[in-house]
């Protein structure tokens, strides 16, 4: 992309920013007609793939996440690339990418490069994307864990920015991943909880309780107009445990 250009995918984040006067892009590059971006082959999801498509055809937990994004109108327009581009701590697509260790593929005139999710998301709405780079695709690993569950807590039952998001995946060998959103400046993984539970073949009540406790400990939420630190901490543990239990069923 050229100097000072702003990419426009579905516009469901960008136009909100423009309408609020938070940004006034000089040059806008509309991406809808770039066919490559809408391509989706295997684990390579083009940045321009919409939530509507993910809701239908995505891996289980990503499809569950897609279903909760905004309203049908938003899901028809909004894209995964846009969600990654905005890099909000409350982005619905991001916990799944974190849980499966997805990579972000970036393209520019000087070529392509791929960054792992945790090298790409570096702060609240901050990414390692250079201004001349486009997000071309999101690369998922070859094999995804069978058991994967997504949930999001919001104060209403649809069309809501969540106060806590969680994805839990569990592989055949017990390897468990826990990713959480809205509870830290970026999406995070609860590594200590993962480590604890991955080694337990069939977790019992004690293990589950300890797992929930560790998740609650590992998150670093804030109090704002949407929720409180204490509630986010508490419900991170409750939610992670519930999702783990669903994975274990």
């Amino acid at each position, binding site marked *: 992309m050229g100097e000072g250009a702003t990419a426009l995918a579905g516009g469901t984040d960008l136009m909100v920013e423009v309408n609020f006067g938070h940004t006034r892009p000089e040059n806008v590059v509309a991406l809808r007609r770039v066919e490559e971006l809408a391509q989706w082959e295997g684990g390579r999801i083009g940045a321009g793939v919409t939530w509507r498509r993910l809701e239908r055809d995505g891996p289980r937990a990503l499809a569950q996440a897609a279903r909760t994004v905004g309203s049908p109108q938003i899901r028809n327009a909004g894209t995964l690339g846009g969600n990654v581009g905005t890099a909000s701590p409350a982005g619905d697509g991001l916990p799944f990418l974190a849980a499966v260790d997805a990579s972000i593929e970036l393209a520019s005139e000087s070529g392509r490069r791929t960054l792992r999710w945790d090298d790409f998301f570096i702060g609240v709405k901050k990414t390692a994307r250079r201004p001349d780079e486009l997000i071309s695709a999101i690369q998922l690993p070859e094999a995804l864990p069978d058991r994967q569950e997504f*949930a999001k807590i919001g104060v*209403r*039952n*649809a069309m809501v*920015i969540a106060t806590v998001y969680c994805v839990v995946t569990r592989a055949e060998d017990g390897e468990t991943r826990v990713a959480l959103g809205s509870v830290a400046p970026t999406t995070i993984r609860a590594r200590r909880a993962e480590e604890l539970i991955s080694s337990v073949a069939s977790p019992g009540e004690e293990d589950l309780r300890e797992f929930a406790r560790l998740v609650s400990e590992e998150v670093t939420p804030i109090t704002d*107009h949407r929720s409180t630190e204490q*509630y986010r901490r508490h*419900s991170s543990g*409750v939610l992670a445990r519930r999702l783990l239990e669903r994975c274990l069923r």
Partner: protein
Amino acid sequence: MTTKTTTRITPAKGGVGESPLRPDGVPKLKGTFEYAQDLHADQMLWGATTRSPHPHARIVSIDVGPALAIGGVHAVLTADDVPGRATFGLEHPDQPVLASDEVRYWGEPVAIVAAEDEPTARLAAAAVRVEYEVLEPNVDGDEAERRDDTFRRMRIRRGDQEVQGEVVVDGYYEVGMQDQAPLGTEAGLAIPDGNGGVDLYATSQFVHVDQEQVVASLGLRPDQVRAHPTGIGGAFGAREDVNLHIHLCLLALYTGKPVKMVYQRSESFTGHVHRHPARMWYRHHANRDGTLIRVEARVVIDGGAYASTTAAVLANACYFSVGPYRCDSVSVDGVGVRTNNPPCGAMRGFGAVQVCFAHEAQMDKLATELGIHPLELRRMNALTTGDHMPTTGQLIETPLPTREVIDSLEAMPIMDDGPPDDVTQLPGGTGLTTEPGDVKRGVGYALGLKNLGFSEGFDDFAQARVRLTEEGAIVETAAIEVGQGLVSVLAQIARSGLGLSRAVVKHVDTSRIESAGSTSASRQTQVSGGATLEAATKLRQRILDAHGGDDLNDSGVWRGGELVVGIEELAEAGWEETVTFRHPPTYAPDEDGQGVVHADFAVAGHRAVVDVDPDLGLVKVHRVDTSQDVGRALNPESIRGQIEGGIMQGVGLAIMEELVIEGGVIKNPNFTDYLLPTILDAPDVEALLIEEDGSWGPFGAKGVGEPPTISSTAAVAAAIRDATGRPVTRVPVRPQDIAIG
């Protein structure tokens, strides 16, 4: 009380009791209905408002230069450009048209601009350079009360103040600041008439008071300003106060061009008044048998920076602080404080909502304490016709079927079907947080009481004119349709009054008819409906008398089974009748808050069934059933619309709708974070309409707009208590209040 004349319903197709298709229904569905946002005039300019970014500051200087320097800007006006009265206000003109020396709330207008297009106008509004000396905002209600910075204090003392009950329960309750959140934001168009006057088309609930306030601040003669009813996308109280009306007229007369303004969503949240947040302390005394002996209450509401209707809202909160229950010893102290919080005013329920949440929590507490079923306790103490209002002592003369409401609510089958299988119908909805095993179900009841029409001696009247024309009968009125269905019901009343099946409502401006009063206080069907019925029946009688007829129908006047004058001939004759209707008089209360303060009352009851996920504090309101006193159901479908919508608003206040204020600043002035219930949050609703003769409304009709919102919130709160055992002393109930406490 004045004598009641029971008017015969003359048979006519589309008359009262039916639910004819709304004349504006199809255009609204198709998107062809003209809302204020759609108004257009050739050569029109766009207006925008410069607002204070501080809740409290001294204005050091205002430099309009940078705004005027922008190409396409026609005017930038400040307080110095207001030719007439510098302030406005619904009850007390205390609010500056544009702030001059001091700003007192976040978002207060400081300057207005007109430019050739909307973006330029907004750019110019942002370019006005205002230098502020920031002051500490006064946002603490207790502090304001100590300083006696108040809009009104209320004191009610009734009966023996020494009596004590055998059982006493105390409670403290809070209600957050709800917003009316009408889908249509504030919008309007002012057109100069070329002779120094102006025509105003703007969102409103009461065009005649807009007109008066425009006249005062523009320093014009009353005949120079005409306020026209226009298409409104919701109001709920937010449109009683002037906001952009004077601004538009100032800009139009200054530039000599039509000027249009449409508030953006975030601006709308600061551009209108909100529901008062309330803090309430209660003590209920009862005897062991359940008889309510004494109620003591203290009610504090925060009016924010300017008066608006705080005095009346406070009074209402105090008058209805006991609810629909008999009680002969009552002590209520209320205060409406002035702070630098956002100004609050009218919202559906007008003070009765806040206290209902508290008195119903108290009734449940008493029931638990006494071991009596909550409905039984309410039935034992039910206030009915012939009783005296527990607060004002007023004798209740119109029908008040509180007992019928309770009995019918109790008789409605409750389907204890357990949590639904569809997870999106559970707490957390599409977020998939919750499975049936995580859910606890609860059931709660609440009753609410409110006045209908204006009170405390306000001269409450409405004028309507019924004309016979080639199009059929036309009802002319300035009563505002805000979406509630006035355009249907007035036509129905006219049909049933005249005995003719063709009737339409036509809105006319303030120069062509006298006031209809505000579309608020659940009053238009009763008051404008009363005027319409009287005009229609008088007109019918005059026509019959003139032609010696014994019947009038769509063919014309009949005598002894023979048509004597055809309907076309009648239409040509230009028959018309104008009536000003007044409801029975009310009076200001005495120093103990006693007297005939209200004209009529309505009672409703709600039963809420909720599913709660206690660990996450998430709530899904499964269903809300209701029984409501409606007098006479003139349009059952419209009433159901009011009931379902009102319940949604009540559910919203119970579990999600709140403006979050920090240091006087609204943290969520947008629909991303001011959450309204979606259809997935909507409960199923079953509604029973209780009809009784005897109210002074047309054919005995009562107002129906507010009761659905009053006790629905309290019922949901009660159901959450039932499900969780949590005290739930504050609404909206937040997830953390349930999950953590």
